[in-house]
């Protein structure tokens, strides 16, 4: 048994010839909270989907617990996924089921536990995220932060070894953000799980992550502990961490010469 539960080895992935990832290497040690950061559209969420086996890499491989994900058949992938829990960006709660049934869903689908035991387990999970009192609500009756906490309870329903978070802080008010932040760290330590956070919120992520990867232009641009990265002199990391407007990531999308384009447009209208 290796000390890394997930290993990404020389991974490339692309659609229609355009590569989104070019030879990425990452390791995720057991029991740690590891963050993957990068700008919008840098393929962070795609990495989670590659770990979950929802898409196949063009080159390289992802190993979960020593098994190569894309070489598994359907059964094998499902076996691997039972070790994972995932929190989707907007919670992805089943809107036709109540909060209770949402958390009970993985237990009912994947185990043969008696209903009485499922009830106890669901209430325990909901209690862990502080929403035991809301178990009879429907997802549409919840606020964004509450919905995400319910989704978190659902993700940890079967005590997974790996918990993946897709933008857990996006679109939350500061209080909910703080709650989620604390929950990620405490659940990780309480369950002895490994957490993978995909995010672009620097402050919260640096607060709880043990190790951070920066992804830019399909490559790992920088990596290290949050303290190291705060001090980093790399221009990209500096720009990202401090939120500078211009830098290696340019303000302007690549375009032709400004002056000639304006002149061209006006002459085009005349003709």
């Amino acid at each position: 048994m290796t000390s890394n539960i997930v290993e990404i080895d020389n991974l490339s992935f692309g659609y229609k010839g355009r590569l989104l990832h070019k030879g990425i290497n990452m390791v995720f040690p057991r029991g740690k909270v590891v963050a993957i950061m990068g700008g919008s559209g840098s393929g962070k969420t795609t990495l989670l989907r590659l770990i979950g086996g929802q898409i196949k890499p063009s080159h390289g491989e992802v190993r979960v617990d020593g098994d190569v994900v894309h070489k598994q058949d359907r059964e094998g992938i499902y076996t691997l996924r039972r070790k994972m829990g995932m929190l989707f960006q907007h919670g992805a709660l089943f809107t036709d089921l109540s909060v209770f049934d949402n958390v009970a869903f993985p237990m009912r689908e994947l185990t043969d536990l008696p209903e009485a035991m499922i009830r106890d387990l669901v209430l325990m999970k909901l209690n862990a995220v502080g929403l035991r009192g809301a178990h009879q609500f429907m997802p549409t009756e919840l606020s964004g932060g509450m919905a995400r906490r319910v989704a978190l309870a659902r993700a940890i329903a079967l005590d997974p070894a790996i918990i993946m978070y897709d933008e857990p802080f996006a679109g939350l008010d500061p209080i909910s953000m703080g709650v989620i932040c604390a929950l990620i760290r405490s659940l990780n330590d309480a369950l002895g799980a490994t957490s993978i956070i995909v995010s672009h919120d620097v402050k919260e992520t640096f607060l709880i992550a043990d190790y951070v990867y920066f992804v830019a232009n399909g490559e790992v641009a920088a990596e290290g502990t949050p303290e190291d990265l705060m001090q980093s002199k790399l221009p990209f990391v500096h720009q990202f961490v401090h939120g500078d407007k211009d830098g290696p990531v340019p303000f302007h999308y690549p375009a032709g010469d400004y002056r000639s384009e304006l002149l061209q447009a006006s002459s085009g209208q005349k003709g």
Partner: protein
Amino acid sequence: MMKSKLMLSMLHHLRGMGHRMIERTWRLGAGARLFFLAIVYSGESFKRFHLTLREIYFTGVMSLLIIIVSAFFVGMVLALQGYNTLQKYGSSEAIGVLVALALVRELGPVVTALLFAGRAGTAITAEIGLMKTTEQLSAMEMMAVNPIARVVAPRFWAGVISMPILASIFSMVGILGGYLVAVPLIGVDDGAFWSQMQANVDFSADIVNGVIKSLVFGVVCTMIALFEGFDAPPTAEGVSRATTRTVVISSLTVLGLDFILTSFMLVV
């Protein structure tokens, strides 16, 4: 100069047509694959039958009202129109036959399928499209739960079970509507109405064939609705377009298939 421009625009149209053809063929294949997978993974929907039961409630029971009301009016109109023509030939007793045959053979299965596409089909497409848009299907996949077994198969079987039931109800209610117009209102003889009907409606040739038709329509309408939901682009606009397509494609397919099935049934 003009000629080459015309050529170019023609080429452009031709390319567009080819593109659309390929797109449609692709969708047909993908739909057929979904159908196949729904059959393969349908064990779950029978082992845990309450999943299917729930969908029968949403597709079948919820369509009951529109089916009954429409059938009643269709039957009444058929009787009125039929009487208008039949009485010219002095055979207004045959009104029962006319109403019953029209309903059992054609209007029952076809109108039910059209209403089903509009009522239940759109609901299925919108629901699955939204589940996709809000990543509920992805979440299910990541929980190692197969969405085809958990979401598609129960809805498929619910549609296949509901459709013949709805069509039978439609035919029966329609005949009752026709009876109400013909007998108490117009004054056709009660006995002649039913006896002529019984003498001329054949159980296997008319009623069973009607049920077979509605079974086929059940498979087709439900499958189209499911596929459109699955295939919808995950945006609000994508889902709304998919819903429209469900109605359009289902209706055209039902009418076309009806012709093919009828011609088979009349030959055999």
